[in-house]
């Protein structure tokens, strides 16, 4: 056996889903030392649910799956926050968006570039992922993979153990660090081969269903962000704007203003955190939602929009059956009260963003 076998070290790109867990198990089985890396982009749905912190949330549903997968296979996992830099990927994706707001090819390139840096930092020999050829339409077909391999700078130091037999041999396979025969040739969206392999390898704990954790692939979220982009140049959109697109019901008001109404207590509290950059609306005498109205260059929106916003807010509170509800509006340097008739469901439907 070549001497490198005892010294071989790899970085696993680990989401903690079934595919990356299986890739990890396959590489570990060959005696390679592995360090897992998990990148936090700020668009993970589970992280957001934790951020909101609903009282009835079940912690086991909100655990970090990458850490859990690492623990199951006794592998250390490093979580790296790339959320700030990731904004640039989102603002200018060279290879465009997928069906929604998902810049999948640029996302893979960026994460693999980060993994390459991490590989150098920890003195590892190669990087591997749980990608399966043909599984995802935007980034996991041969042409996209070739682009990704070249652009990320890893070249043949990037291994995809689950589809390795369908791809060109990589450096660790060529030099004998990895035995190609023990890697797999999975292709497409059928999950049965992975489920079978999981049973063989004793990988029993993995999240169901597979995937679906990224807000950027969510159609509702994408609609809200694209609506936001009607008012802003893409380069002006900040992390906070994108964060607020994950919360509450969103409305586009008649004069162009934007309104967000909390759906439950924890969302209302969450919205409160952003009151310094928005106008905040709450009913004075009736329990109910908290709402935020976007300011324009620090100024309040037009009076008509504020009135509609107050009426929509009143609809989502205990005063919805009253003739008049008083709503307190507070913004930096501005406080007032507006008395409104709660909006009808039909009126709310006309302004809500679906």
């Amino acid at each position, binding site marked *: 056996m070549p001497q490198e076998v005892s010294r071989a070290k790899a970085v696993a790109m680990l989401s903690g889903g079934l595919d990356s867990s299986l890739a990890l198990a396959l590489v570990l089985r060959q005696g390679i030392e592995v360090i*897992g890396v*998990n990148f*936090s982009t700020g668009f993970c749905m589970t*992280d957001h649910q*934790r*951020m909101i*912190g609903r009282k009835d*949330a079940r*912690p*086991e549903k*909100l*655990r*970090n799956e990458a*850490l*859990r997968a*690492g*623990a199951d296979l*006794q*592998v*250390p*996992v*490093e*979580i*790296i*926050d790339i959320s700030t830099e990731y904004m640039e990927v989102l603002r200018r994706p060279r290879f465009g968006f997928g069906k929604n707001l998902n810049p999948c090819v640029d996302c893979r390139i960026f994460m693999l570039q980060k993994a390459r840096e991490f590989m150098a930092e920890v003195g590892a020999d190669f990087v591997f992922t749980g990608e399966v050829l043909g599984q995802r339409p935007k980034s996991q077909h041969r042409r996209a993979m070739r682009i990704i391999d070249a652009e990320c700078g890893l070249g043949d130091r990037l291994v995809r153990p689950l589809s390795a037999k369908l791809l060109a041999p990589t450096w660790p396979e060529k030099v004998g660090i990895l035995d190609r025969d023990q890697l797999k040739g999975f292709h497409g969206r059928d999950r049965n081969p992975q489920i079978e392999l999981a049973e063989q390898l004793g990988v029993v704990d993995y999240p169901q269903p597979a995937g679906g954790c990224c807000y950027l692939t969510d159609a509702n979220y994408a609609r809200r962000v694209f609506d936001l982009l009607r008012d802003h140049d893409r380069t002006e959109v900040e992390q906070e704007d994108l964060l607020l697109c994950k919360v509450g019901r969103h409305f586009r008001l008649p004069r162009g203003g934007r309104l967000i109404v909390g759906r439950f207590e924890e969302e209302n509290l969450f919205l409160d955190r952003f009151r310094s950059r928005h106008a905040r609306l709450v009913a004075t005498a009736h329990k109910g939602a908290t709402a935020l109205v976007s300011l324009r260059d620090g100024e309040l929106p037009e009076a008509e929009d504020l009135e509609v916003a107050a009426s929509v807010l009143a609809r989502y509170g205990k005063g919805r059956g009253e003739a008049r509800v008083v709503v307190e509006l507070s913004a930096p340097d501005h406080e007032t009260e507006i008395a409104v008739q709660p909006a009808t469901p039909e009126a709310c439907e006309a302004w809500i963003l679906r």
Partner: protein
Amino acid sequence: MSRAGNPSLDTRGELCPQPIIELARRVRTMAEGAVLEVVSDDLAFPLDLRAWCAGTGNEVLDLRTEGRIHRAFVRRRKR
């Protein structure tokens, strides 16, 4: 410093995954066998803490939850 004289890390108000990122960063600077007290109000922190320790070989000496506050003592592993 915590009441027991251990260094402490208060991550209350930090959003996931920051508590574990900060914990990992801090533990790396500690001597082998040293103990860190860490406090978090992140909902799934206890699960993540135990998983992180199981993967890295560090040790959870104690973990308690009062209301929404989790308080743990973590010992850096000895090589």
